[in-house]
């Protein structure tokens, strides 16, 4: 980094202030000491960084990785049509769509249900590791990776919503019924837990190794 950039690099931490994580008001540490650790504008508790960011992210990531196994092994739904039951898993659902010639929908479900959860867990693992080991390389690219990971996470719920619609709609006893499978619970849990993991990770930790404002806390 050259001198000019170094000069411009004032952070909230470096001027002894914190940014409210709800309303972004910049509050000085001296104000916090005198008036309590509450944002004067929106009433949220103030933190320099998200509290216990790393340990929470690690714990949630491990939980998600464990639940990822039953989410993919157990069936997510069973379709009984004219007495013929067909059970499918997450990946089975994608294969059925592709086999039926529904390539676009198959691709959407594959991305949302197979690619996104794996990508999300691996990306957060990489980011958490990079912070833990205090890597300094490419902070902007890592922040972009974080932003992308946080953005895509919710889209994995497509399959859960699809199941909820099928079981509500298809209940013609003799002709056709659809029931949910236990894999759906594990899968929804993976999606929700990884959403929390992304929320608890603090991308500012990526930049704290740059030398300024690295007092954490």
């Amino acid at each position: 980094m050259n001198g000019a950039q170094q000069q411009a690099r004032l952070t909230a931490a470096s001027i002894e202030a914190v940014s409210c994580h709800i309303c972004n008001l910049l509050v000085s540490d001296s104000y916090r000491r005198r008036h309590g650790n509450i944002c004067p504008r929106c009433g949220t508790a103030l933190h320099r960084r998200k509290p216990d960011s790393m340990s929470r992210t690690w714990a949630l990531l491990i939980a998600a990785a464990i639940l990822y196994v039953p989410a993919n092994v157990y069936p997510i739904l069973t379709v009984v049509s004219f007495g013929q039951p067909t059970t499918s898993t997450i990946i089975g659902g994608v294969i059925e769509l592709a086999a039926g010639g529904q390539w676009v929908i198959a691709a959407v479900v594959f991305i949302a249900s197979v690619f996104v959860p794996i990508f999300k867990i691996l990306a957060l693992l990489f980011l958490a590791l990079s912070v833990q080991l205090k890597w300094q390389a490419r902070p902007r690219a890592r922040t972009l990776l974080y932003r992308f990971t946080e953005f895509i996470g919710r889209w994995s719920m497509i399959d859960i919503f699809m199941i909820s619609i099928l079981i509500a709609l298809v209940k013609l006893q003799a002709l056709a019924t659809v029931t949910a499978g236990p894999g759906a619970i594990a899968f929804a849990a993976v999606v929700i837990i990884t959403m929390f993991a992304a929320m608890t990770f603090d991308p500012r930790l990526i930049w704290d190794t740059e030398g300024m404002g690295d007092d954490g806390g």
Partner: protein
Amino acid sequence: MRIDRHFTYTESHMACPECDLLHLVSDIREGEQGHCIRCGALLFVRHRNSLDRALAFSLTGLSFFILANLFPLLTFEMEGQTESNRLIDGAIAFWQAGYWELGIAVFIFSVFAPLAVLLVLVTLLLPLRLGRAPLFVKLQIRLLVFLKPWAMSEIFILGIIVAFVKLQDFADVGIGLSLFAFILMVIATVMAYLTLDTRALWARLEELAV
């Protein structure tokens, strides 16, 4: 950049929520998006008449939400027998099948959070329009930020499309009136969030407090 180190709290500067770098707020003009110069994060958006626009979009969204709950989303016909489902039926079906965790999750993501977002926006922006301070401003702002990731209406629409395609294989599926209302509700909600400039909101609240 210069900043007085003895400030208490300030609105003239803001720190990037993703990398902590300080920015001078006045550098961002009306109608522009402010991005962090170091990491590229979106800092905030400035719009003309931001609050009025956001109010219009949230009222529109709320009306469409009501419509979306009155009629079926999809209809399903097989050998003369017909079934249809409303927005809330997915959550109820999970609950009744013994998957109560999924019932609660689907209820929150597809019904409760989207409705709560619209209600919070309207109860926040309508009093401001009428020149009054909203009752629970601080709580409402926090709710707005907190609820945002859990309101998954746009994802629910994709779920409907996938369900529709899967059902086509073995029955006649039709699109209900509510599906259109639901899609319009999603668009209105997204527009409300996009046009809402929280700085204009704080400025308006301060005007009222004086």
